[in-house]
């Protein structure tokens, strides 16, 4: 395949891909008086429309994507993104709405926010919800701020937040941004929270435990109700990272397990597309005690006469402008309406079926450090392949040669050389079987021809890239050279 040049390298003065209508008001030169006007933007592209279209079409062909095949990134829930959802979000009535428009002219938008808040509460078993956070990490930050604000009101914000060693990196990072010192909780031999370690560390100086359930191994915290008791007994809050809600929708509800606050990733569980790395949306649902502290504004009033309420004296404030990634929220609503209660439950069940099918089909060829039952994902490691000098990275790169996307790598940190596989519910048995067959073939290749894996991928537009060199000697933009 020909490498597509950078747009700047094919730019030529005078070329245009877009023409504006002629100015229909007077345009006197003195209109610019007092403004610091630039003469030009050195290096800024000038190409034709055809060149723009070819540029991006060719670049698109250098991307793997869900529309092309299985994308089993563990903890990312790369499920199929329904096309009707895109059509819905693009309807002019929604897309052209200005966020500062008078409330009576955007009743449809406000109704959407109200509905999705209500549905999130029902699905999660919680009392109130904000849709403002733009992604999971911002949801975590919001959730932890709510906890802190509530504890402050009770007189002491406390010092520590407990996070299991299997947690996603955003958990400790968000807790830190909230002013807390993070303490790690050990996992037991089954891969779940060690209750003794928790009981020891859970003191009245601890604000919260952040738990992911099912956790990053795909294991459900069997003792979740006991965990909640231990945390609550010391006056702390139980935060749940809802990244793995896809295993639970319609089967059980975090609110019923003693969870006080959780965030939900609409771009995971509720099918909104990942867009090459966002936008996402990270609604936060809470129990009643935390409701007064939710970000402003809140949707208030009744259907047909909805308003945005800014008068919320205990609110933590806002975490971004306006009301969240509204276009993403619309797509999640379309998904919920499409599937209904039975469809959402089936989604969880089949996600778990697909993951267990992969786990059972590969457990002889790949090492499973934790043999506890798992739900929507499973975490293998490269232990067997390491004996032949082959790492999880080599396995991942070889998968690319066979035309499938590799699993999440080297995470969670408690499994050395991890390969974390989450197939999601939308894969067909044929695609699952093909993935399994490729994984087994690669396990054999690791034994017979390890060099083939160490030099993979072979069939891509570029081969292994020098990431160390990229960090040591950063080239972060194209440099314009004056001729």
């Amino acid at each position: 395949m020909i490498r597509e040049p950078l747009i700047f390298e094919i730019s030529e003065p005078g070329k245009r891909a877009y023409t504006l209508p002629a100015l229909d008001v007077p345009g006197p030169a003195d209109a610019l008086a007092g403004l610091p006007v630039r003469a030009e933007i050195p290096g800024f592209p000038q190409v034709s429309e055809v060149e723009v279209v070819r540029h991006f079409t060719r670049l698109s062909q250098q991307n793997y994507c869900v529309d092309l095949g299985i994308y089993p990134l563990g903890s990312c829930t790369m499920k199929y993104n329904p096309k009707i959802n895109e059509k819905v979000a693009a309807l002019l009535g929604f897309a052209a709405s200005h966020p500062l428009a008078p409330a009576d002219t955007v009743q449809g938008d406000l109704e959407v926010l109200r509905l999705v808040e209500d549905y999130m509460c029902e699905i999660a078993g919680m009392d109130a919800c904000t849709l403002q956070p733009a992604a999971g990490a911002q949801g975590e930050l919001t959730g932890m701020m709510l906890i802190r604000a509530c504890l402050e009101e009770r007189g002491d914000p406390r010092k520590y937040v407990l996070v299991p060693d299997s947690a996603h990196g955003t958990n400790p990072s968000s807790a830190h941004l909230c002013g807390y010192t993070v303490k790690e909780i050990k996992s037991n031999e089954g891969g779940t929270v060690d209750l003794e370690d928790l009981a020891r560390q859970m003191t009245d100086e601890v604000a919260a435990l952040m738990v992911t359930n099912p956790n990053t191994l795909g294991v459900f915290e069997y003792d979740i109700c006991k965990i909640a008791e231990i945390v609550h007994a010391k006056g702390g809050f139980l935060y749940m990272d809802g990244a793995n809600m896809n295993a639970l929708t319609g089967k059980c509800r975090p609110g019923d397990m003693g969870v006080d606050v959780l965030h939900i990733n609409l771009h995971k569980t509720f099918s909104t597309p990942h867009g090459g790395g966002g936008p996402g949306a990270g609604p936060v649902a809470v129990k009643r005690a935390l409701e007064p502290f939710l970000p402003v504004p809140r949707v208030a009033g009744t259907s047909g006469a909805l308003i945005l309420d800014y008068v919320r004296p205990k609110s933590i404030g806002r975490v971004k402008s306006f009301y969240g990634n509204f276009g993403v929220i619309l797509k999640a609503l379309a998904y919920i309406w499409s599937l209904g209660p039975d469809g959402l439950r089936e989604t969880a069940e089949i996600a778990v079926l697909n993951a267990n099918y992969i786990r059972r089909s590969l457990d002889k060829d790949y090492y499973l450090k934790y043999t506890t039952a798992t739900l929507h994902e499973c975490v293998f490691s490269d232990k067997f392949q390491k004996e032949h000098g082959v790492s999880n990275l080599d396995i991942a790169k070889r998968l690319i040669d066979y035309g499938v996307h590799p699993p999440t790598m080297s995470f969670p940190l408690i499994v050395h050389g991890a390969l974390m596989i989450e197939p999601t519910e939308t894969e067909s048995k044929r695609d699952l079987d093909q993935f399994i067959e490729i994984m087994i073939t690669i396990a054999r290749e690791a034994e017979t021809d390890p060099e083939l894996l160490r030099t993979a991928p072979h069939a891509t537009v570029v081969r292994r890239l020098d990431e160390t060199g990229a960090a040591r000697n950063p080239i972060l933009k194209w440099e314009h050279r004056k001729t």
Partner: protein
Amino acid sequence: MSYISLGDKDKKEMLERIGASSLEELYGCLPDEVLLKRRLALPEAMPEAELLRRFEDLAARNTYPAHLSFLGAGVYRHFVPAVVDYLSARGEFVTPYTPYQPEISQGTLQIIFEYQTLVCQLTGMDISNASLYDGAMAAAEAVLMASRLNAKPKVLVARSLHPEYKATIRTYIRNLGVRIEEIGFGADGRLDPADLARKIDKDTSAVLVQSPNVFGVVEDLKAVGDLAHGHQALFAVAIAEAASLGLLAAPGVFGADMVFGEGQSFGLAPSFGGPYLGFMACKKEHLRQLPGRIAGQTKDVDGRRGFVLTLSTREQHIRREKATSNICTNQAWCALRATMFLETLGHDGLREMALQNVHKARYAAGVLGRIAGVKRRLSGPVFNEFVLELPKDVAAVNARLKAQGVIGGLELRPFYPELGNSALFCVTEAHTREDIDRLAGLMEEALR
């Protein structure tokens, strides 16, 4: 509707291989006490046609898009070339994730690299990240970045910074020992240099100013930057109307250490507040404290050019609680649209667009300002927004306009009571002369 691809025979075979008798059995690892014993109370499943009808009904309850509107204040209506909608809808752009595997993500990575280059060209900075959530969150990240760079406790923020950006900063810093103080504005709407000189001291981490500011007024960035640097404070510039960068001098020219803001104007629909695009750029000496993903150029084992995500030792998945930010998923697809928008408009198109904004806003300020009783407030030079003081209550005037299908200027009293009965009007290239004259005619009637 269902998006499941398994037939009954598939499910049976799969359960057999697993050694389970039913789907329920797979949930045997949950304690019975947590299992939901009822169906979720949600509407029943809807087929596509029914779904579309319900959404069309909801969309029709938004009467706003049928109005002629002069709202701006951080969200702008600009032309979007057809190629942007067409190309950005490709599944290869919509349905991948963060490019963790660079060999099969060169499309996304090269586009981020081009995006970073465009942001640097527009802002006059050395380095750009791959995107943040929006302008407000970028403002908060800029404050945090400044405090990491120099560990000073106070940030001076222009009162004319977008109120939602200020509110977001306040939320982000509430538990971090950083405080903000506001710097007022003068009669021309620009930052009051005397107030800045009074408040800046050795504890000042950064001075943060928006240009064009929330009133549309273009700031004297050189004066502000010199004052900031004179006190060893960082100089951070917010851009809420990114289209202005097509015409106005890059903030980097005036010595900005960080330039950040909102990229919604670059091909993103207003969409009731999101998703938008936070951008952030800085001088290269600040690189290690820049939050968010960054793409870099490198070579593959055969010496071919390629792109990767780089400098990840700043990020949460490596550094956990010591990361520069907790951000993970960002706004990649929005950055992709901005890249398509900018490359399609190109050098001359972007400049022409920005220029038309200035001329149309000037024309509108002229015809509206001639209406009896209407006074122009804040006399400084503007880009595409301006403030008018009305002789009658803004809300009442706006209600009259709305009855005629027009959404007038944004009432400023809730945010800036000191401006009295004033409104902020926005005019872009998407407004015709006829639109502006129509507003003027209706305003005249409403004020009579």
